[in-house]
């Protein structure tokens, strides 16, 4: 898609993948951080990771398996809390532990079988060996994530503001909330191969955390977060490929550095300090 700007095919594919994945994750990061469901995002990322590992081991499509695992976890949290009389936080902790255990078990086992190389890609991401179809799929999920927010903007913003107030003004909170989880699960599963299960969380939280340092309005956050994420991710891909550094971990470090700088420079925090 971007071959007319970047002639080198490998670099072009890496940039495209990082661009679509970062924009999709960043728009959803605004929802994840503002609805305060980052633990759900975290657990879903690891569930997708476990699903992909199991899929690889069983020679099934890892992407489909990770989508199924991510969605299953999102829909299991409520019933598990009710049946086992656990707080949602404890349920998430349990599911996270189970997902990690399953993922690590299968990755370790595959290593003993000599299939470790492909499995390691699930941990830290692999931006180079993507098929064209996978990049198209990322472009589609990027459009789906943006369309989801545009179409349900009123409902999403009200839920972000306060779920109970959203319900009291006549919004059908549950279907919108579950649709949110479904889109997050889908995005997580499709971004997993390039970013990796261990680092995906950075993409799902940091862009919104950076945007929040500068934005007073949610609508602005939905523009600033993906813009910042796209710039950082493309820079990470270009620098990583130029100097033969691991792209996803390098980009994650860049995200963290930009977040620290944003906190230090944040005009919103300066106002707060002055007021106190």
């Amino acid at each position, binding site marked *: 898609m971007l071959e007319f700007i970047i002639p080198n095919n490998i670099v072009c594919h890496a940039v495209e993948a990082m661009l679509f994945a970062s924009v999709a994750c960043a728009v959803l990061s605004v929802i994840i951080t*503002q609805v305060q469901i980052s633990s759900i995002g975290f657990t879903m990322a690891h569930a997708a990771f476990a699903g992909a590992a199991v899929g690889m081991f069983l020679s099934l499509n890892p992407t489909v398996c990770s989508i199924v695992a991510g969605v299953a976890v999102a829909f299991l949290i409520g019933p598990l809390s*009710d049946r086992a009389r656990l707080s949602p936080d404890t349920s998430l902790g349990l599911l996270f532990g189970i997902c990690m255990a399953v993922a690590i078990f299968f990755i370790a086992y595959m290593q003993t079988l000599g299939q470790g190389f492909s499995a390691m890609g699930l941990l830290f991401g692999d931006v180079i060996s993507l098929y064209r179809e996978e990049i198209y799929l990322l472009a589609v999920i990027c459009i789906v994530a943006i369309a989801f927010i545009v*179409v*349900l903007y*009123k*409902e999403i*913003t*009200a839920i972000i*503001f*306060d779920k*109970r*107030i*959203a*319900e*009291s*003004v*006549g*919004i*059908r909170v549950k279907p919108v909330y579950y649709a949110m989880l479904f889109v997050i699960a889908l995005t997580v599963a499709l971004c997993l191969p390039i970013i990796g299960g261990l680092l995906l969380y950075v993409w799902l939280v940091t862009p919104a955390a950076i945007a*929040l340092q500068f*934005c*007073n*309005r*949610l609508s*602005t*956050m939905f523009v600033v977060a993906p813009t910042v994420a796209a710039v950082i991710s493309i820079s990470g891909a270009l620098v990583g490929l130029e100097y033969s550094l691991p792209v996803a971990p390098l980009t994650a470090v860049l995200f963290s550095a930009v977040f620290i700088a944003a906190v230090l420079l944040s005009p*919103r925090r300066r106002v*707060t300090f002055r007021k106190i």
Partner: protein
Amino acid sequence: MTASDPVIRLENVYTAYEGADRPTLTDISLSIGRGEFVVIGGPNGAGKTTLLETINGMLHITHGKAVVCGQDVRGDGVQVRCRVGYLLQNFAFDPLTPFTVEEVVLMGRYGTIGLFRKPRTEDYEAVKKSLHLLGIEDLAARPIGQLSGGQQQKVLMAQNLARNPEVLLLDEPFSNLDMFAREEINRLLARLVGSGITVLIVSHAFDDLPDRPVRVVVMQEGKIVVSRECPPKEVEQIVRNAGKGPSHA
């Protein structure tokens, strides 16, 4: 529904919270007419907030019949909530909450606007009108998290008024307000009741009631133990006499 029909009619209603093994409200029967001012009192845990959330369909009715604004609450609570304002108790917004006052008030109309539709000019007009009613037009562009508790309370009140409710449910509406703001809200409530809006208010501050006959409903252990009309000055005494009434704030 005719003008003489009750705007709220509960018949032998039982309500339970999700996952609870027994109902929180038991055998509630209540009939409230258009333009009535109802004060709900009773000790903590008596079921006052539960009663409000039963009326607007936010809680599951396990048994009985509930009709609000001519709509069956058990059928579609969402339709009821589009016509009923509900000011929730106890809230605090983070200073970094990325919403302006105008955006928060506009949310009050989201249910009536409907899914996949954008706010129209009339929605923005309703927001302006309700900001004006509460005297907070000058706060419209301010982030809600940077306002005082009393100002935030007024914003949420404006949010409820923005959808032109037929019934207004207020849970401790005076809790964050100073005496001037209380008087202001009281005058507004009296005007709303005068214009035919039914107001149900859960409060422990009985000296702040509008100067007009009110209906007092006293609850204990999930049941209504008193429901009668009286002058506002007698409300506190009735609540006290009905049992372990709250201490005067």
